[in-house]
């Protein structure tokens, strides 16, 4: 396994004081914490920083780490194996914290979890398993119609020694129709295993909707911008527009303006109440016009007396 250069990861020198280490951790944690950071690889970077801090903040662990480091254990080609007979005097327990420190960390300070958790309940060993979180990205159509998806989820597993490790589990899941962005769904019993006859935890799934090429989404409301020709809005017309349910006919009233919104009540994402579908009118000019058409425009120019910029001119 790879030797971890904890000082480098925390961007401090090997003589750094406890205070410097704490400051460095706080600075890097703010930068890379997955809940606040937009940096690429924030999660991975934060894990490394947290692991380095876990060791360097604790004088006993730091001393052990320094010893192993001084022994040149990082030796051949950067590969690390603990010195023969190595056993840490410190012991690593975590209370619902970081459960995936590196192999390097585990080889030095032991594994977390298992025993701590299994004995935490004293005599009543009966304990339900942990709930596990995952995200599921869907297309708008999939969320609207409901769909089946295969998800890969990282779930904890208890081995024969009672230690917790993780594995990737594939699950075939059914998403109900009308699932909204950010909603949290769950599957019973697909989380971590229970202890002492306690049931398994649940899987909690947060739904993320991908951007749609035509529709923009605002809560449960959908908006579609519809290009129309000048005479279509001048005279009124019926046009066909795509919706999530398929195509539908919409009446554009005569005299409609660009930017005007028409509401198709209840045609947005389902729910209680369901969202609406908005058609926004966008007047567009045809690309190539003939000289005859141009003459007709000239006729319009002479016939229609209007100034769309009147508001500015009054002020000037």
């Amino acid at each position, binding site marked *: 396994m790879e030797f971890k250069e904890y000082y480098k990861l925390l961007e401090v020198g090997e003589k750094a004081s406890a205070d410097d280490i704490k400051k460095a951790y706080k600075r890097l944690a703010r930068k890379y914490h997955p809940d606040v950071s937009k940096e690429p690889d924030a999660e991975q970077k934060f894990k490394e920083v947290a692991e380095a801090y876990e060791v360097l903040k604790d004088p006993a662990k730091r001393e052990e780490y320094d010893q192993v480091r001084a022994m040149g254990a990082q030796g051949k080609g950067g590969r690390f194996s603990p010195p023969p007979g190595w056993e840490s005097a410190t012991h690593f327990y975590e209370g619902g914290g970081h459960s995936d420190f590196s192999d390097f960390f585990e080889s030095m300070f032991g594994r977390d979890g298992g025993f701590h958790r299994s004995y935490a309940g004293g005599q009543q060993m009966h304990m339900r398993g942990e709930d596990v979180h995952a995200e599921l990205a869907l297309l708008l159509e999939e969320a609207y119609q409901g769909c089946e998806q295969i998800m890969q989820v990282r779930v904890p597993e208890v081995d024969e020694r009672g230690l917790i490790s993780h594995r990737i589990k594939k699950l075939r899941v059914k998403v*109900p129709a009308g699932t909204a962005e950010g909603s949290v769904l769950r599957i019973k019993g697909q989380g971590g295993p229970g202890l002492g006859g306690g049931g398994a935890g649940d899987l909690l799934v947060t739904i993320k909707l991908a951007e749609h090429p035509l529709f*923009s989404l605002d809560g449960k409301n959908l908006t579609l911008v519809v290009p129309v020709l000048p005479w279509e809005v001048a005279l009124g017309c019926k046009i066909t527009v795509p919706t999530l349910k398929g195509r539908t006919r919409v009446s554009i009233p005569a005299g409609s303006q660009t930017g005007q919104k028409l509401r198709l009540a209840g045609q947005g994402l389902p729910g209680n109440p369901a969202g609406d579908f908005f058609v926004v009118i966008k007047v567009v000019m045809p690309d190539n016009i003939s000289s005859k058409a141009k003459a007709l425009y000239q006729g319009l120019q002479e016939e229609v007396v209007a100034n769309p910029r009147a508001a500015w001119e009054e002020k000037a």
Partner: protein
Amino acid sequence: MTSNEIHELVEGMQEWSLLELCQRHLLDADFIVACVESGIIEAGGLAATMPQAEWRFSAAAVLRIEKARRLQRDLELGLGEMVLVLDLLDEVESLRAEVSSLRKRLQHWEHSS
């Protein structure tokens, strides 16, 4: 290996009690109570007038309290600071969603010729 079993995702259906939340999320009851009292999460009703044994937490509340715990632990925040950070993160998230929705709509109106 994918089993052929199909698991149905359900919304809201069940809720967590305070005890379940402690056990299944390895959370400290004092921490959960502090989160409810400071308004970070809701306990399914007027928490102040309900016995704690009747508190019920939704899946969304569960994810939120986990986030609160991560922030508090990893950034070593005090309760007040954590409430502020969560509020600001919520605001950032909703503004980001709004900006992206408005940008998307703007794409349909603006283009260079």
